[in-house]
């Protein structure tokens, strides 16, 4: 109840703030302090509502539908807190929470800069009010009670002692399919409970719990940072619109710059933390899958990065001349926020239901419409404003330019980034039109873009502002260009990068690194605070080289590891040594890894999640300086469970050249017999056969036999062999090209079956997918360096913005 009141008060305060700021802008004298009071009232309401939700989650108040749906009793505190934003309503609330907090800082910032406050904060309050509208009790409040709309909850979540009581019987339902029993929770039922004097919270004692996919460390980090980034993207929009209102386009650039830089930094960091989550924990194998929701946050980031560069040109040019790229800057700053809203729309409207891992469920028509209105309102407001001033802008500002100028190079770079943004956006929006694109759509288009951006980046830094003499460039950057070519050649040859596009990307990235490092080095001796941009550029270039290495040169192999028997996989000796159950009831499969004498262990994890009754897998990674050895578990079987697959209990795995003793025979598998004509038959898809050459040593006599696998029309069958002299029958049941066969032995006269053998042949087989990902550390290092660069630049620009 209180929560809903707070959210409604917040909305009222938000609208009030907006109106008061508008009146101040129109020249009213005493409305500014009212507006500030209004803003603080809104902030307090939102903070209080958030605290209330957090409290409800921590104290397991399952009468709230949101708490029941996403939280549970058995979660550790950190994860329990993260259920705050596990669903639609709560994640809107956390976005709102960060928005109002960012707004407090913005209020402080703008109040010191002339008449900026009323215009900027008016727009900002509008954005906050829209978010408040979304979490309004009439739409999607996280404080809605479980019984507001009738819902069925599993009896396992109910205090069992109430189940036999007579009043409940009318509300029990059987699921015809699953055989589960549910209680229908409705307003009527809540009334009955109340009449019985039972607190709802004593009745429902467990929540549905958090999706196990989300139950890990990164769930506590990635979403909040992403929402801080979303909240901060509101600021450039507010600045741009404020300057349109005043019809004055010079000051806002300088004032917005630190906000654009820090917002872009936070958003970029959040995106890549999501990438690390996917790579390290979810076991997707890579850090980027062009999933529509990943893309949806990437597009605003690309546009924001483009805007940084054109804002910079305007700042430089207006110091001693007419400002450049005014319209571009307005449009890009508006676009950034509009795209954040659009990505919210894509994720939350249910449109991506069939296309994405992240998407929320269909929220219903009202919310869908409101999301559309939210996006449209800010699109129309922003672009309408630019259109309104278009003519004025065209007539007022004119300038000449030179082809070889840094301005033009930066502009071209920004356009290239925008092109990338448009491409990703087009692919991502395809599901709206009932279609979608393959991953290669993104890869093939963004590869040349990355090459161009790298080249333009290095090149633009060789150029001077305004105009440059072509010969000067060569003179002053001879060394760097030669260094680039030599370094790239070394990387390309040593790494065997024979794909033309990848080689070009290497050259362009190395070029970026060399030029930026050189400039950074020169600056570092002088004004350290100016070095930010160059650090960020080196970061992105390292990231690109890392992505070439991992994207183009990852090796994969799927293998069966038999417990206790080493297998050679991608140059590593792997031995599965057994599993153990950890304290969360998950199975960790220990694998010894040996390479060149150095030993280590890895323990990928599998478990059955009760939440959705399905198998969950978590990879483990052996992190080396130059590469990651990545192990994803696939399945685990012991010989008992293999029986159903047609294997008998007497299965023995014969490894090539490793003798096996059975009774008084020594049996050695020496290799496959796979003649060339059979090999080509296999490639043609027609029937073929493979023989396993086995040597049986019986009392000093050697016999060579060859059981066969015959494949015909996709069906496989096995032909066994007999060695009468040794009273031995060998039946083959499987073979593995890596050099082992699975056989079983029996005596010909039936005198001895496998009984004596059974205990010792119990086999445990762990199937894994292993991959070697070269230089993936460059990807992470690149991101960290980029974030450092952004941070340095944001500090510098925030100092300058006061000047």
């Amino acid at each position, binding site marked *: 109840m209180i929560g809903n009141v707070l959210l409604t008060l917040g909305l009222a305060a938000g609208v009030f703030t907006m109106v008061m700021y508008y009146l101040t802008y129109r020249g009213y004298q005493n409305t500014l302090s009212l507006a500030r009071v209004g803003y603080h009232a809104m902030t307090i309401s939102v903070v209080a509502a958030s605290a209330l939700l957090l409290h409800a989650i921590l104290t397991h108040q399952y009468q709230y539908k949101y708490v029941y749906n996403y939280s549970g009793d058995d979660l550790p505190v950190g994860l329990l807190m993260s259920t705050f934003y596990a669903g639609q309503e709560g994640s809107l609330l956390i976005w709102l929470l960060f928005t109002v907090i960012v707004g407090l800082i913005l209020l402080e910032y703008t109040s010191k800069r002339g008449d900026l406050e009323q215009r900027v904060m008016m727009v900002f309050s509008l954005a906050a009010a829209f978010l408040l509208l979304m979490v309004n009790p009439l739409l999607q409040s996280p404080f809605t009670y479980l019984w507001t709309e009738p819902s069925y909850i*599993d009896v396992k979540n109910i205090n069992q002692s109430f189940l036999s009581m007579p009043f409940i019987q009318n509300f029990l339902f059987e699921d015809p*399919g699953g055989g589960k029993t549910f209680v229908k929770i409705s307003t009527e039922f809540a009334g009955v409970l109340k009449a019985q004097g039972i607190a709802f919270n004593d009745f429902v004692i467990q929540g549905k719990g958090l999706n196990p996919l989300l139950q890990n460390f990164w769930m506590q980090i990635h979403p909040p940072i992403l929402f801080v980034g979303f909240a901060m993207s509101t600021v450039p929009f507010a600045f741009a619109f404020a300057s349109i209102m005043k019809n004055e386009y010079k000051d806002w650039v300088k004032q917005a710059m630190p906000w654009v830089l820090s917002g872009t930094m936070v958003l970029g960091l959040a995106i890549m933390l999501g990438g690390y989550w996917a790579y390290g924990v979810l076991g997707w194998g890579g850090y980027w899958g062009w999933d529509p929701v990943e893309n949806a946050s990437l597009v605003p980031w690309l546009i924001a990065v483009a805007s940084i560069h054109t804002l910079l040109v305007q700042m430089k040019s207006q110091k001693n001349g007419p400002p450049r790229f005014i319209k571009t800057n307005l449009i890009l700053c508006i676009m950034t926020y509009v795209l954040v809203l659009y990505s919210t729309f894509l994720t939350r409207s249910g449109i991506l239901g069939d296309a994405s891992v992240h998407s929320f469920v269909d929220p219903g028509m009202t919310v869908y419409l409101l999301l559309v209105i939210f996006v449209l309102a800010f699109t129309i407001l922003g672009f309408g404003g630019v259109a309104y001033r278009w003519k004025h802008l065209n007539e007022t500002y004119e300038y000449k330019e030179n082809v070889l100028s840094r301005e*033009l190079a930066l502009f*071209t770079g920004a356009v290239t980034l925008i092109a990338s943004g*448009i491409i990703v956006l087009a692919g991502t929006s395809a599901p709206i039109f009932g279609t*979608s694109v393959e991953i290669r759509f993104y890869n093939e288009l963004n590869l040349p873009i990355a090459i161009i951006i790298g080249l333009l980046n290095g090149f633009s830094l060789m150029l001077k502002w305004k105009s440059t003499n072509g010969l000067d460039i060569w003179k002053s950057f001879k060394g760097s260009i030669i260094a680039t070519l030599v370094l790239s050649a070394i990387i390309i040859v040593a790494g065997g990068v024979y794909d033309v596009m990848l080689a070009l990307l290497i050259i362009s990235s190395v070029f970026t690194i060399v030029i930026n490092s050189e400039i950074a080095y020169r600056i570092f001796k002088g004004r350290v605070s100016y070095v930010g941009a160059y650090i960020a550029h080196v970061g992105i270039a390292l990231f690109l080289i890392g992505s070439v290495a991992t994207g183009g040169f990852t090796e994969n192999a799927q293998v069966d590891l038999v417990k206790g028997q080493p297998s050679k996989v991608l140059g590593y000796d792997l031995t599965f040594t057994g599993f153990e159950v950890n304290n969360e009831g998950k199975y960790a499969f220990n694998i010894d890894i040996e390479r060149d004498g150095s030993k280590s262990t890895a323990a990928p994890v599998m478990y059955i999640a009760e939440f959705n009754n399905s198998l969950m897998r978590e990879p483990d990674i052996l992190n080396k300086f130059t590469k990651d050895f990545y192990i994803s578990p696939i399945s685990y079987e012991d010989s008992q469970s293999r029986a159903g697959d047609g294997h008998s209990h007497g299965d023995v795995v014969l490894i090539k050249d490793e003798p096996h003793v059975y009774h008084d025979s020594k049996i050695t598998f020496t290799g496959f017999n796979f003649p060339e004509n059979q090999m080509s038959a296999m490639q043609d898809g027609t029937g073929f056969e493979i023989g396993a050459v086995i040597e049986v040593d019986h009392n000093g006599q050697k016999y060579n036999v060859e059981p066969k696998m015959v494949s015909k029309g996709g069906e496989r069958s096995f032909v066994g062999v007999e060695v009468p002299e040794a009273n031995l029958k060998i039946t083959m049941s499987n073979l593995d090209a890596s050099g082992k066969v699975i056989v079983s032995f029996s005596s010909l006269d039936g005198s001895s079956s496998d009984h004596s053998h059974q205990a010792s042949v119990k086999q445990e087989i762990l199937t894994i997918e292993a991959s070697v990902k070269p230089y993936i550390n460059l990807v992470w290092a690149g991101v960290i360096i980029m974030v450092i660069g952004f941070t340095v630049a944001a500090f510098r620009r925030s100092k300058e913005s006061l000047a």
Partner: protein
Amino acid sequence: MKNKYIFGGFIIVVFLGIMGYLFTQTNISYEENFAEIMKVNKTVKATGEWVKEKSYHIDKEKNLFSFYVRDYNGTEMQVVYKGAIPNNFESATSVVLTGKYSEKGYFHATNILTKCPSKYEETFEEASS
């Protein structure tokens, strides 16, 4: 003509041109009617229901996972996927398969998205690729 329009325009025109072309090349449409899928030799996203009665088959040698799906008409189709059985597969009520109907008489899936809505419980989705 200003330089910025020449340079910027060139980049945009070139990339949007390539994009338009690649879009038609890589575009995958949703198709719920298996009879249609079997007719056209084109990559699609097929939505259907796993035929539980026919179980599934895992070929560890070749790393293949195969099963049958049924569409709303009751048309059944065999699916072969190179890779491990996706998480959630057994409890999925419907699957979204990306792939192509092969001449060999089965649907060759490159991606399986499992969906697990139940009448009483909330929908959640998960991909495997």
